[in-house]
């Protein structure tokens, strides 16, 4: 079979059974792979009202059709499930080389059902698959766990997905880690592994991925690599990586500082790309990447791959910490304990704000490095009262301590590092994403007129549809110039049958609408598509957009416009015509 392996691994942890099933052929041309295919499987797998942390919830892990080939930046794989953080369906994708490895082992994806009666890991060695006892790894960080897994399977090049103590303890923003510094970061992937008593999945694959016509495929890959990938628009990923954004968002006045009080960090120089370059000792790439955006840094014995932009802001500027060494330490601890640095950093920022404003004394002050680094493990280990409080996330803290005005979340997912008051489109993107406040669905922050609400509503719709197909093809976000024409071209050569950009575009919209259908059935309505009070009522301070808020009226108008552009009614419900057009009427 070309591009695909044609097999999905079905794992039931409750009765510890493993079997394979053929990949659902009938879904291929509508959902393609990765996000789309995982979502379609998931939709079939659970009832939308399922409790995310119950054995009845399922986890779907899926690779993409181009993964495992040398098409550039295509190693990503994803997980789809119902999020313990948001209660929505969600997708989280990661890079590295787990995705290609899974395909080399012979599988397009894995479906995980049930719950084991003790801590286990899933061992995949080509066609030998088993569920193994993970008791010796209980409580271990991800770094140690990865070493133990490689030793246990007797292969140093095995790839794995693991959780740390945060996932085992059910912290709702716990993540899954792979190859030390890569994560399925957002939405509580780690908590879901933990809820199933699944510590890890380790995989070794010695097989291959085939394409229909190798010489044609290589020729196309080479062409696009030279003419579209390695171009001025994308090369920032090679030279700087995401830390480049530190100065960019500061200049744009959307750089979250002091718990989203300011849009400009006076002290960004401590954390910007120049600071990163000074600390850099190597460049790191995911499989098939030509850029290597991962910058391996070292300062005073603290080292890791990263930090990335979001972490530099939410574990730096937003806490008024402008010391790169501290952010490196924060990031490394989070990666080892298995926590999303965005949510974790964001909620610590809120706790610092609450402390400063006298709402609740968490003994956390803006700029206090020592207290900052100390609280991280308390959250993961759930070892103190404040650790337990912070694990509740922004919404939980707001409710418990009457502090909604200090919280930045949508659907209980904390904001990433772009302030919507200086980029209204980001506000619409956060409000309408399937998984809450997320920057990976639409990214209108660099649009020409960031306050033109109608234009931004359209930009968000287009961005979401495109991200839906791009991530279903397992293409990395940082191939920023890729088009559905290019993806269709690669798919056609790989599969040996014609794939058109038009059908990929349609699939993107279909995938987005299927997410919507799930969330509607899970009880989400238009009132859940909101932006928080802080963005509505408190003017942004500092930076070029100082004084800006996003009014309730303007936002609600933009939301209706967004629904309209989607072919949804004013309550955000897709019309029958739209569903029919997308082939979703029966779902």
């Amino acid at each position: 079979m070309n591009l695909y392996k044609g097999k999905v691994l079905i794992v039931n942890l409750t009765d510890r059974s493993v079997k394979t099933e053929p990949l659902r052929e009938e879904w291929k041309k509508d959902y393609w792979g990765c996000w789309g295919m995982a979502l379609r499987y998931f939709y079939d797998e659970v009832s939308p009202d399922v409790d995310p942390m119950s054995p009845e919830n399922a986890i779907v892990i899926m690779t993409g059709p181009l993964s495992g080939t040398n098409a550039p930046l295509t190693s990503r794989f994803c997980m789809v499930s119902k999020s313990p953080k948001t209660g929505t369906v969600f997708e989280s994708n990661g890079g590295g080389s787990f995705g290609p490895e899974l395909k080399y082992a012979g599988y397009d994806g894995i479906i995980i059902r049930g719950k084991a009666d003790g801590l286990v890991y899933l061992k995949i060695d080509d066609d030998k698959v088993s569920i193994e006892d993970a008791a010796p790894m209980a409580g271990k960080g991800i770094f140690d766990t990865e070493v133990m897994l490689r030793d246990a399977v007797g292969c140093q090049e095995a790839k794995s997905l693991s959780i740390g103590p945060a996932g085992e303890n059910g912290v709702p923003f716990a993540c899954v880690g792979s190859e030390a510094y890569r994560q399925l970061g957002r939405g509580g992937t780690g908590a879901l592994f933990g809820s199933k008593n699944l510590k890890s999945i380790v995989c070794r694959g010695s097989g291959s991925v085939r394409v229909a016509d190798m010489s044609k495929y290589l020729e196309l890959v080479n062409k696009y690599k030279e003419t579209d990938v390695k171009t001025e628009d994308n090369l920032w990923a090679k030279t700087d990586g995401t830390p480049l954004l530190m100065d960019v968002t500061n200049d744009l006045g959307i750089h979250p500082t002091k718990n989203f009080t300011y849009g400009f960090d006076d002290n960004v120089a401590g954390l910007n790309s120049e600071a990163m370059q000074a600390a850099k000792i190597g460049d790191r790439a995911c499989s098939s990447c030509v850029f290597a955006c991962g910058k391996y840094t070292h300062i005073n014995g603290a080292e890791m791959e990263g930090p990335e932009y979001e972490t530099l802001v939410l574990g730096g500027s937003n806490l008024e910490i402008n010391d790169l060494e501290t952010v490196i330490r924060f990031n490394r601890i989070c990666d080892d304990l298995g926590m999303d640095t965005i949510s974790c950093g964001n909620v610590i920022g809120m706790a610092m704000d609450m402390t400063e404003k006298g709402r609740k004394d968490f003994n956390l002050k803006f700029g206090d490095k020592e207290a900052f680094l100390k609280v991280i493990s308390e959250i993961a280990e759930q070892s103190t009262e404040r650790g337990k409080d912070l694990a509740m996330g922004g919404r939980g803290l707001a409710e418990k301590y009457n502090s909604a005005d200090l919280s930045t979340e949508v659907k209980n997912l904390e904001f990433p590092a772009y302030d919507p008051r200086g980029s209204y489109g980001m506000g619409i993107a956060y409000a309408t994403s399937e998984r809450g406040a997320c920057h990976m669905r639409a990214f209108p922050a660099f649009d020409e007129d960031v306050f033109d609400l109608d234009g931004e509503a359209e930009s968000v719709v287009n961005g979401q549809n495109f991200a839906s197909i791009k991530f279903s093809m397992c293409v990395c976000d940082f191939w920023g110039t890729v088009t559905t024409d290019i993806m269709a071209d690669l798919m056609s050569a790989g599969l040996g049958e014609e794939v058109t950009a038009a059908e990929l575009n349609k699939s993107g919209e279909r995938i987005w609408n299927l997410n919507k259908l799930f969330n509607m059935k899970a009880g989400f309505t238009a009132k859940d598509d909101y932006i928080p009070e802080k963005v509505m009522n408190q003017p942004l301070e500092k930076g070029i957009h100082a004084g800006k808020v996003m009014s309730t009226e303007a936002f609600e108008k933009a939301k209706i416009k967004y629904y309209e552009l989607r072919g949804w009614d004013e309550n955000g419900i897709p019309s029958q015509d739209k569903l029919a057009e997308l082939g979703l009427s029966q779902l």
Partner: protein
Amino acid sequence: MEKNLLAIPDLCTGCNRCTYICSALKEGQFRPSMARLHINNFSLNGYSVQSVCFHCPKPDCLKACPEEAISKNAETGVVLVDREKCTGCGECVTACPYGMINLDEEQLAYKCDLCGGDPSCVKECEFGALLFQEPDKDLRKLRGQQMKQRAESGEPEDKRYQLGKSIMAAARKE
């Protein structure tokens, strides 16, 4: 002087594009496990070490072969397997201290052939971590240091990892 395939681990990002192209051209499919070079990843340390065939001046594989199926070209230095003569005894696999020759599914030996003098892996590397040229003094020294690391036993993959690990440890200590 003959050209050598040279690996510079300090520049390797672990992207594996070299193993993708190698297996695509040699096997007609993307299959890094069958590539003629390998990448050992030390993710936690942010380091990767390539394993390449050195086409040794005095190849252990050649010496070990009881069938005289392995030869070294006097002019180019390339070490090749004659698969017509190979019986699949595996002596070469045991003998190579770098884990760079192995038996395929037909139980015949396969290894790097330098793509006939224009290695694809080198052209594919975006980071200058693989070179094919006459080594200058520094590169000769680097190659010498790598060749000095010899694993006496283990499966090819284990040998490669063992050697890679000591190269990584030395680099990260600096």
